[in-house]
């Protein structure tokens, strides 16, 4: 670094663009499939089952083996360690099926070919003799088949629910089915393994969780973790779909690489990726809610049943988080919520942005809506009547007290800034004209708990080296998937040292630099890794300050950090100069930082604790127009006010909020997963699975940060997590569509649309309104 460079301005809380921007726009940003392949690279391709549930009686590999370009075949018999990549360590997720397949699309073996095309073609040539078994594809079928669970269910309970329901003046029972969602990360799953000496193997994996890939590969190869290095420079999107779903691909690449001592790459086709990897859980929620004449909830009793697929994967924590968000922003005097994580003969569902929370909240919004229609009120009034209080009415179903509640202020501000009341009147007036087009408007809140509920996950490490010339090398355990984590952590480090961002080199994430990291998930990336990097800087700065005190002969207390360097007494010393002299005095200029979230604990057996360090809040208003003849609709305007505490980087945070909202809107409106009766996913490409397009963005889309908000907890820069919470802002689209549909029966019948609210569902809703409309 040039020591004559100008004094750097602080960069935290500033609008800074993604660090790789110039490479992204010029096509130079390297993803795994872009890496130069060493001579001799082989390609693996998975053979997938075309049965939902069947015994494998026999496999004839002859045609596979003799196909052109085939180098070898990998089956379960070729695995030196364990044939399992279960992240829950329940040993229920084989890499290659043995004896039986549990879902359509389950990997059975892999073909290793000289080219990807050769492996891909040969993978279809095995002749398999099957004996079909009965398959349970969804929640109802799973229950009918005996209701096998993939993991321990959870119950949250507070107060006397039975008495609360009995005593309530009014009561409503209902059911909502909430659909799943495919991640459709634009870069599909991929892994590239390069064998090394002895047991060593290096794996480039598109994963949000390099440490887990490392552990899984070690188990599968039957070697120690220290022999496995996992690298991730960037992902082309993750959204939770690369929290555990990359494990299998990395394991297959590593197995083949070690077996044949050649580099091996594996990248499934999009269609196979969509069939063989897990998705957001779909839920069926049955509820029984008691309330009074003002719409105040007295008691909630609900069962959250989830289609988990054939293995546990993350279904335990996902269904737990659904229950943790069964309150959304509402206080329940008495509550009992239970999860039912069901085994089904479908792909094992997994993490997806929000991790069960969105489904938990969607159900809460449904009973709020039911109450509003039951009483003939604006659902917003019911929401407000049930919001958590600040001093009382503030204990969650898991016995954590909400101490940072700002939902009231947020909603009031949004109600005003979006002109909600006047627009609602206009919508009602429009609908009384009784035309073919109907409008709806709704305001929904979000309160989302931040922290991994598996408490031990709330730790992070960083490794910071300062070189003799004052340039800085930054590694941490977080992974970059477009969310802007790398730039945010670099901002933290730049300000900690008082240097400009150009002094910092952001290194690719690797298990060799920072060990035992957690998944970059649960929105926790910058909270955890930012703090770990800050801790590393703190250690190096302490040593530098002691050194400065010594050579400039001032008390350590008289050494102050200022932008660009230090003040030693009255003398300014530039950072690079300080570092150069510290090196000559043999001061250690490298440190490993560490952070663990304080004050959190969770007793799952008793359903009590403080699983969340804090809550992030938000609210949105959506206005829609539906066509009552076709069911088609448009989202005309969306206003969002969202809380990210004191933003580390407003432009990145706004991008997360906009992107999260649109992705949530896709989940709740157009993205429909369809399995046929035989258990094959029929929506396995973007031709049939519809994610939002540029033209689906609402023409009026006002997104603002709640600039007055600061995290009450001591997070980095008093910021709040932003990855997941905005996804749930899209619930207002569903509620607005409901209102438009309900206009067909003068808002006297609760519309109860299941999600995704496709045009077909709107049309069915309208039909139902017409039949059930009171005379």
């Amino acid at each position, binding site marked *: 670094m040039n020591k004559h460079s100008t004094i750097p301005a602080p960069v935290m809380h500033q609008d800074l663009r993604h660090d790789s921007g110039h*490479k992204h726009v010029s096509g130079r940003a390297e993803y795994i499939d872009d890496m130069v392949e060493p001579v001799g690279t082989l390609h693996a391709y998975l053979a997938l089952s075309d049965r939902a549930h069947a015994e494998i009686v026999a496999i004839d590999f002859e045609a596979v083996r003799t196909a052109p370009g085939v180098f070898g075949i990998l089956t379960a018999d070729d695995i030196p360690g364990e044939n399992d990549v279960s992240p829950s360590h329940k040993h229920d997720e084989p890499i290659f099926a043995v004896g039986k397949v549990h879902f359509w699309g389950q990997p059975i073996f892999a073909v290793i070919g000289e080219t990807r095309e050769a492996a891909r073609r040969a993978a279809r040539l095995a002749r398999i003799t099957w004996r079909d078994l009965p398959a349970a594809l969804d929640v109802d079928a799973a229950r009918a088949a005996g209701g096998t669970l993939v993991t321990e269910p959870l119950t949250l309970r507070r107060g006397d629910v039975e008495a609360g329901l009995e005593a309530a003046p009014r009561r409503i029972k209902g059911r909502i089915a909430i659909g799943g969602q495919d991640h459709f990360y634009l870069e599909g799953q991929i892994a590239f393994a390069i064998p090394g000496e002895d047991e060593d193997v290096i794996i480039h994996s598109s994963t949000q969780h390099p440490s887990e890939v490392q552990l899984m590969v070690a188990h599968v190869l039957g070697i120690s973790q220290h022999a496995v290095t996992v690298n991730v420079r960037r992902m082309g999107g993750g959204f939770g779909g690369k929290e555990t779903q990359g494990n299998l691909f990395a394991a297959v690449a590593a197995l083949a690489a070690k077996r044949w001592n050649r580099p091996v790459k594996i990248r499934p086709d999009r269609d196979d990726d969509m069939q063989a990897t897990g998705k957001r859980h779909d839920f069926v929620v049955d509820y029984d809610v008691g309330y009074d004449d003002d719409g105040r909830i007295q008691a909630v009793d609900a069962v959250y049943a989830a289609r988990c697929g054939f293995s546990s994967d993350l279904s335990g924590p996902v269904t737990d988080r659904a229950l943790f968000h069964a309150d959304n922003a509402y206080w329940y005097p008495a509550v009992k919520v239970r999860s039912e994580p069901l085994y089904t003969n479908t792909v094992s569902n997994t993490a997806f942005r929000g991790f069960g929370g969105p489904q938990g909240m969607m159900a809460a919004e449904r009973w709020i809506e039911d109450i509003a229609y039951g009483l003939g009120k604006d659902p917003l009034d019911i929401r407000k009547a049930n919001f958590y209080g600040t001093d009382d009415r503030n204990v969650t179903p898991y016995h954590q007290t909400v101490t940072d509640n700002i939902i009231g202020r947020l909603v009031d501000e949004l109600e005003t800034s979006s002109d909600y009341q006047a627009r609602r009147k206009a919508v009602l007036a429009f609908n009384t004209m009784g035309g073919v087009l109907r409008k709806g408007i709704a305001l929904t809140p979000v309160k989302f708990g931040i922290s991994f509920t598996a408490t031990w996950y709330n730790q992070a490490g960083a490794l910071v080296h300062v070189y003799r010339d004052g340039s800085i090398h930054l590694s941490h355990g977080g992974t970059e998937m477009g969310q802007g984590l790398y730039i945010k952590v670099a901002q933290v480090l730049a300000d900690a040292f008082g240097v400009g961002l150009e002094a910092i080199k952001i290194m690719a994430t690797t298990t060799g630099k920072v060990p035992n990291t957690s998944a970059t998930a649960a929105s926790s990336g910058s909270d955890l890794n930012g703090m770990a990097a800050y801790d590393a800087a703190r250690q190096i700065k302490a040593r530098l300050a002691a050194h400065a005190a010594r050579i400039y002969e001032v008390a350590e207390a008289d050494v102050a950090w200022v932008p660009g360097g230090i003040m030693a007494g009255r003398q300014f010393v530039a950072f690079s100069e300080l570092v150069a002299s510290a090196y000559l005095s043999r001061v250690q200029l490298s440190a490993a930082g560490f952070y663990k979230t304080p004050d959190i604990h969770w007793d799952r057996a008793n359903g009590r604790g403080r699983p969340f360090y804090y809550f992030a809040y938000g609210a949105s208003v959506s206005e829609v127009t539906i066509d009552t003849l076709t069911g088609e609709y448009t989202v005309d305007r969306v206003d969002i006010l969202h809380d990210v505490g004191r933003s580390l980087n407003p432009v990145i945070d706004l991008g997360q909020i*906009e992107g999260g909202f649109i992705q949530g809107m896709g989940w709740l409106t157009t993205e429909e997963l369809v399995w046929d009766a035989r258990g094959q996913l029929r929506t396995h490409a*973007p031709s049939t699975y519809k994610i939002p397009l540029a033209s689906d963005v609402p023409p009026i889309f006002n997104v603002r940060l709640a600039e007055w908000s600061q995290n009450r907890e001591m997070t980095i820069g008093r910021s709040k997590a932003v990855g997941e919470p905005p996804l749930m802002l899209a619930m207002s689209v569903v509620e607005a569509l409901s209102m438009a549909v309900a206009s067909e029966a003068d808002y006297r019948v609760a519309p109860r649309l299941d999600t995704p609210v496709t045009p077909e569902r709107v049309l069915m809703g309208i039909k139902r309104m017409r039949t059930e409309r009171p005379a």
Partner: protein
Amino acid sequence: MHITLSINGKDHELDLDPRTSVLDALRDHLDLIGTKKGCDHGQCGACTVLVNGRRINSCLTLAVMHEGDAITTIEGLGTPEALSPLQAAFVAHDGFQCGYCTPGQICSATGMLEEMRAGWPSHVSEDLLAAPDLSDAEISERMSGNLCRCSAYTNIVAAITEVAEARDEAV
């Protein structure tokens, strides 16, 4: 098959299986890895390149069909040191998150602006004969063949609009 492809102004001699797509020719045979594969089915737009100035999904067209055509990829539009106006606008507006769709978005936008300039109407054009206006609706509609799962659409449209307006003023 032996063919010559003109890519970013340079001729490349290639021996290809006639079934090779332009996308695979670029990525696997020429190390032009800026063009991405999102679906390989013509459904996502990640592989968009320009052929004689027109945008095209390179996964859906065979390399052998393009002898004599001028193919432009993201690498041909600009370099990190000398970005094209659209590339620079995408940086300025943060028109991406993970970046995987970005080369396709920029190639597509480059071709799309030419289509607008030539007066081609779109599905949302009110008047099929008038010059299309630079509304968000027009630009979004014309970019709807390029999926962005991160949904950076707002910033993508803002970046394109900025370049389109600057160009309009220059005319």
